[in-house]
């Protein structure tokens, strides 16, 4: 089952293209991390999904309904947590909970109380007096207590110190354990995505550069130190999965999802040393080439 499916989705603001042909499949039950640099269009993509913006082209489905068709019933199955959550600032935490509960038939007070406790949030404090970290935590609690099928979080754990970040991650992972619940989050924090997510996509230069199960991608990506004469460069670059070929003193540095046996078969290749790539190296290899 697919929770979100996007096909050739485009968005431009005036003459400025922001997203240019986004294809994305988010499996039901996954914790999906959308990675990208500042300004890559991650938030725009989320806002398109939530129906806050209209696409300039392409199409997509969200929980089986086409984009833009988010009626109240569907909207209630989705919880969206923006990077800077907005509350009624004069309300106390307890009042905010009752306010959201009244709007959501699926509100689960036991869940809410559990996570309020887990984070140690002060029920009697007014929203405007909460720290940035507390606001981040409260927004997650309010979202989770509505028992969403799809939880969309823009830059989770923003503003949290390491201790609260860990607790936030544990709560998020615990909440993701519901098999029918899908979590889509955006982040520029590679460590968070590697910890929290089972799938990720990298958004760069208006398109998805790589997407899929995290461990599968980590398994497949390689950097090879290839000993070969300069003439072999073109043949190496033409191999399936090769993204970059950089000349080195006695050969080349080849990066990509490369089958070593194919490299072995290139005329002139004398030796290969293979290394795995970390998520950070994969990120940079796509962003910087």
């Amino acid at each position: 089952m697919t929770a979100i499916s996007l096909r050739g989705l485009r968005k431009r603001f005036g003459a400025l293209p922001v997203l240019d042909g986004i294809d994305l499949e988010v499996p039901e039950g996954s914790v999906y991390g959308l990675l990208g640099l500042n300004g890559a269009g991650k938030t725009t993509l989320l806002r398109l999904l939530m129906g806050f913006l209209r696409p300039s082209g392409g199409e997509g489905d969200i929980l089986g309904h086409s984009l833009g068709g988010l009626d109240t019933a569907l909207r209630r199955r989705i919880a969206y947590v923006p990077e800077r959550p907005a509350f009624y600032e004069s309300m106390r935490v307890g009042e905010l909970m009752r306010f959201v509960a009244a709007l959501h038939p699926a509100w689960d007070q036991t869940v809410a109380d559990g996570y309020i406790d887990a984070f140690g949030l002060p029920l009697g404090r007014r929203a405007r007096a909460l720290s940035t970290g507390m606001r981040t935590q409260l927004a997650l609690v309010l979202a989770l207590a509505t028992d969403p099928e799809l939880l969309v979080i823009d830059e989770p754990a923003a503003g949290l110190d390491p201790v609260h970040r860990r607790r936030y991650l544990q709560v998020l992972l615990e909440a993701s354990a519901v098999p029918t619940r899908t979590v889509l989050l955006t982040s520029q924090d590679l460590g968070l995505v590697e910890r929290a997510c089972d799938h990720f996509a990298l958004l760069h230069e208006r398109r998805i550069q790589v997407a899929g199960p995290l461990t599968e991608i980590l398994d497949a990506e390689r950097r090879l130190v290839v000993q070969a004469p300069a003439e072999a460069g073109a043949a190496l670059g033409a191999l399936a999965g090769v993204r970059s070929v950089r000349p080195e003193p006695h050969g080349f540095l080849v990066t990509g999802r490369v089958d070593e046996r194919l490299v072995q078969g290139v005329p002139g290749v004398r030796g290969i040393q293979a290394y795995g790539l970390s998520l950070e190296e994969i990120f940079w290899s796509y962003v910087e080439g």
Partner: protein
Amino acid sequence: MWLRIDSLSGVPIYRQIAAQIEQAVMAGVLQSGDKLPGVRELAVELAVNPATVAKAYEELQQAGVIEQPRGRGTFVLGGPKLAQDERMRRLGEAAQALVAEAERLGFRPEEALAAVRRAVRADREPPPEGEGGDA
């Protein structure tokens, strides 16, 4: 468990988990028949996605370090026997690396062997008085 995730190491988390469990088996900290925590339990403890733990266990199972009989949990396999095989494999790898390095430096295999013998002798001889007392 005593597993530690180093977010700055550049090593994928599932490889960190697999390597630490494997080392514990080698060192005898984990022994044949010991039960490991379930995927979800370990994932919550380490604050990582369960798929990451599942992948680590999958690699360990393929390497013959653990077994996961359906529905009964995850257990350390082998023990001394496995450790012996694995120790032999690693010794072989180290030896190959040494031979390759000797070759690269322009030495013949006999000269590499002689260097190993010298290293073994040096290791067995007690250090001279007043030195090497930091062990």
